[in-house]
């Protein structure tokens, strides 16, 4: 299978990517390519240009700060999978990463690409909704930040407008005793989820639940936060 003909631009900064995307609405960012290449080969999309951001420097960071974690647009699933600090702070993140596709897919695929692609069965959105993460977007007018649950608006649809790119994902950190996990039901290892559920709990000193946050994927046209989880 061969993809259709398209142009190829390699950019060296996200600002440059924004300029190309602004000038041509049929151009598309190329990150890990693990969703884009299959779509191109099946001719589901026909972009004018692929704007390759893989050589943009300093986008592969997982920056762990006291009140938040910032994940750069080129962080691959595999980087999250092997990050020891994340296993301690938010095990839900690496637990999600290891359940995506297979090792080769995880070596190239990115968290930002997964959000932008917005497959209704993608794993990251459930976990990022549970962790109350938001997407930092760079566009022609500047920077804006949108919560993940509002970022994805439907199947393969997001709030990204013309010329806009994801620059990073921001995950807040909470004090105290925080637990998190992601559970995925799949037919066989590496498949997309039949359903995926992520949970974050904040426990008070006596072990009771102070705050619970849940994200669900593959159970509707878009990932969502169950609004009124029932108490038991």
């Amino acid at each position, binding site marked *: *299978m*061969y*993809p259709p003909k398209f142009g*190829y631009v390699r950019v060296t900064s996200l600002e440059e990517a924004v300029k190309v995307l602004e000038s041509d609405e049929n151009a598309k960012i*190329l990150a890990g*390519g*693990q969703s884009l*290449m*299959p779509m191109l*080969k099946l001719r589901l999309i026909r972009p004018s240009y*692929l704007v*390759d951001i*893989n050589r943009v420097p300093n986008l592969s960071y997982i920056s762990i700060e006291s009140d938040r974690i910032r994940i750069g647009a080129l962080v691959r699933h*595999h980087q999250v999978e092997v990050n020891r600090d994340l296993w301690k702070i938010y095990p839900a993140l690496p637990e999600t990463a*290891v359940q995506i*596709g*297979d*090792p*080769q*897919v995880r*070596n*190239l695929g990115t968290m930002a690409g997964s959000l932008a692609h917005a497959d209704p069965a993608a794993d990251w959105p459930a976990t990022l909704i549970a962790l109350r993460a938001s997407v930092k977007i760079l566009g022609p007018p500047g920077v804006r930040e949108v919560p993940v649950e509002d970022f994805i608006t439907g199947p393969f649809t997001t709030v990204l407008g013309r010329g806009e790119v994801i620059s990073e994902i921001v995950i807040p950190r909470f004090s105290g005793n925080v637990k998190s996990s992601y559970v995925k039901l799949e037919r066989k*290892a*590496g498949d997309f989820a039949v359903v995926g559920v992520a949970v974050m709990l904040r426990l008070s000193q006596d072990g009771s639940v102070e705050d619970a946050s849940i994200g669900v994927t593959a159970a509707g046209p878009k990932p969502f936060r169950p609004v009124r989880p029932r108490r038991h």
Partner: protein
Amino acid sequence: MLVHFLREDLGLTSVHVGCDTGHCGACTVIMNGVSVKSCQVLAVQADGAEILTLEGLAKDGKLHPIQEAFWEKHALQCGYCTPGFIMETYWLLSENPNPTEEEIRRGLSGNLCRCTGYQNIIEAVKLAVQKLKELKTMQ
């Protein structure tokens, strides 16, 4: 795609096309130190990258320990999937030189084999781990 460039322009025909949709792993190569499916990467993306294919494993006419292990454990029948399995094993063992059986199974979950059955492949990876360890202590 990179796989076509490697096969048709460079003649590196160990890199096989099994599915072309990113599912079978027969086209696995090492690009800048990590395993990728070369049917999912544009040739132009690899401009300037270091690529390792099966052709680059044997040294001075001697098979790489992973290749020897696949041979000794009968980890192939038709051999179509084998270069992909060997390259993925190469990456797996470079990341984790001492994997458990579970880690081997997970590590090779992106590669499909339609005829050997996976048991001999897992045995071969275990033998390769031994061989690489022995080689290290000898050095």
